[in-house]
């Protein structure tokens, strides 16, 4: 049983998704417990695998007993194990937090929603666990298709945003597939470890076909993760979706795509090829700098909470891509650490914004007046999330940013370090503007036509339901806990994940 955990991580959610879909006709009340149980199992088993990886090194699972270059293998190493825990934990926390929202938004389609939700997690977990380049594409599409549907379920502008996302997402995934095709022609293999062995050979590392494969794979993944200037689909898709969907998609999709990028670069194309043979990393860091600056500036121009958060997500993608392509140990450590931290921060902010819109039915800044008095606990969690995004110790955001900035300085890339500091300052402006509105402005200011009784009613506490508050508080707390344990995470997990050739 235990040695089959890597396969069960994908198989159990896949089968549960089918049963939830059947149950939604027979016994709709059982859908939520079953979904909860399935995600609970996923979280428990990924924590178990993480423990095993830390104790005794990477776990390799051969599907059906077919060994490595011929069969499909699942490889869970120091890089994928912590991301697995993050993916399953975010899915479980958001499920609990959003159950009320799901009841309200999708009362007649709950079974469908839960089915898509589990399938999405299946795809994400599979992307993280797989050791096969083509299998990665299939799981990428499973996650993407369910993601489009989860967004499209929202109202009223969501279907159009989702369709636009679908067009761009399909182009991205197809480019990745095309890149894998060229790799297959060049090497005759699809297994990641096997591909890395081939690419290390001089006749492949000098071939233009492998270079083309790298460029087109990366273009596909950059499109999927919303790296500027390929970010066009992201803001509308995430802000028009129901908060229950966007709090799942926003923390996971972009982060897992960055994980896929790191995996493909380090374990398929090998660091020597990506950072040495190809003279491309400096250019990509400059693109990332543009992503950080433009994402931050566009976030400043927004007038509603969710839109602003989506542009922050775009800037954060720039952090991680730039940090990785610095090509030194500090930068890659920061980038991998930021995947974990940013998933938690984004989840915290989206959950808080979801709780606010659950009560106020609007997320525009003008409706946030006096929200601190009405929803003190939600806003406390939001504040912690905001401090983490700005990068104030002891929240986790500070530490990953620290690694990224040091990485930028070590690599002599001062533009990247400057962009990070600029973005932190812009984030500070963004969030303190919200605090100003939410704490100091009273709700009755501009609406004097309300009679007095109504006015007083607006100052009363209308906190979000407990099923939303508790997961939100746990997430906010985890930001501080992750920050305090940064040293352990880096020394025991992330350092071991980065190949020794990178100094």
């Amino acid at each position: 049983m235990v040695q089959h955990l890597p396969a069960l991580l994908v198989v159990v959610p896949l089968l549960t998704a089918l049963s939830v879909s059947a149950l939604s006709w027979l016994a709709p009340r059982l859908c939520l417990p079953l979904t909860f149980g399935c995600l609970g199992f996923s979280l428990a088993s990924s924590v178990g695998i993480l423990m095993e990886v830390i104790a005794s090194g990477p776990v390799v699972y051969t599907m059906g007993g077919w060994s490595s270059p011929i069969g499909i293998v699942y490889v869970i190493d120091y890089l994928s194990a912590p991301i697995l825990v993050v993916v399953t934990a975010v899915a479980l926390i958001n499920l609990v937090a959003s159950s009320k929202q799901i009841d309200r938004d999708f009362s007649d389609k709950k079974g469908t929603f839960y089915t898509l939700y589990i399938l999405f997690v299946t795809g994400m977990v599979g992307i993280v666990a797989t050791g096969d380049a083509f299998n990665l594409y299939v799981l990428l599409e499973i996650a993407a298709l369910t993601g489009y549907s989860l967004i499209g379920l929202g109202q009223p502008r969501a279907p159009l945003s989702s369709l636009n996302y679908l067009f761009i997402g399909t182009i991205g995934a197809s480019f990745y597939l095309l890149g894998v095709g060229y790799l297959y022609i060049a090497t005759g293999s699809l297994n990641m470890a096997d591909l890395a062995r081939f690419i290390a050979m001089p006749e492949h590392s000098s071939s233009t076909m492998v270079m083309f494969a790298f460029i087109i794979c990366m273009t596909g993944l950059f499109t999927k993760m919303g790296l500027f200037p390929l970010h066009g689909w992201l803001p509308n898709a995430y802000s028009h979706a129901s908060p229950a969907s966007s709090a799942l998609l926003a923390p996971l999709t972009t982060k897992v795509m960055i994980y896929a990028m790191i995996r493909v670069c380090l374990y398929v194309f090998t660091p020597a090829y990506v950072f040495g043979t190809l003279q491309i990393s400096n250019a990509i860091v400059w693109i990332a700098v543009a992503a950080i600056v433009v994402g931050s500036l566009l976030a400043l121009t927004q007038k509603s909470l969710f839109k602003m958060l989506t542009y922050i997500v775009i800037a954060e993608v720039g952090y991680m891509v730039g940090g990785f392509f610095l090509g030194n140990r500090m930068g890659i450590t920061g980038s991998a650490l930021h995947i974990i931290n940013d998933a938690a921060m984004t989840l915290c902010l989206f959950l808080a914004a979801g709780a606010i819109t659950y009560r106020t039915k609007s997320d525009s800044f003008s409706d946030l007046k006096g929200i601190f008095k009405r929803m003190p606990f939600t806003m406390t969690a939001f504040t912690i999330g905001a401090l983490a995004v700005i990068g104030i110790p002891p929240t986790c955001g500070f530490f990953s940013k620290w690694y990224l900035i040091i990485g930028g300085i070590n690599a002599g890339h001062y533009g990247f370090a400057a962009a990070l500091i600029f973005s932190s300052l812009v984030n500070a402006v963004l969030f303190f503007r919200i605090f100003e509105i939410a704490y100091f402005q009273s709700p009755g200011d501009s609406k004097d036509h309300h009679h007095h009784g109504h006015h007083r009613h607006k100052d009363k506490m209308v906190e979000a339901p407990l099923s939303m508050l508790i997961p939100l508080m746990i997430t906010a707390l985890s930001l501080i806990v992750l920050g305090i344990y940064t040293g352990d995470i880096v020394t025991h997990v992330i350092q071991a994940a980065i190949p020794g050739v990178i100094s």
Partner: protein
Amino acid sequence: MEQIVTAIGAKYNYIVYVILMMIGLYAMIVKSNLVKKIIGMNIFQTSIILFYVSTAYKTGKTIPIVPYQGHDAVHAADYINPLPHVLMLTAIVVSVATLGVALSLAMKIYRQYGTLEEDDINENLRSEEGK
């Protein structure tokens, strides 16, 4: 000149797939009708299937099945590589699923706005925001 012609003759499958791909991309970017965009997307995906399948082909070779009386197709050089075909079966399933999701989203959009022309929908949205 002669070299170019022979190069094109030997690798025409790549040229055809790139042309198909560009037709698909063009339709997705330029057309304003959503269904035409979806058709473009499908052409785009099909071009990649063509690319994969054509790379497996070997002139004059046989199918990858070992005959009963076994006289050929035991050596890899004698049969057409089956692996890209198998991969593309999966890719075809993915593209059908994508098409299904795209069409159902288009239906939802049509019910909401009464049109599939992107310009009309945008105008609709602008006038909604103006209210």
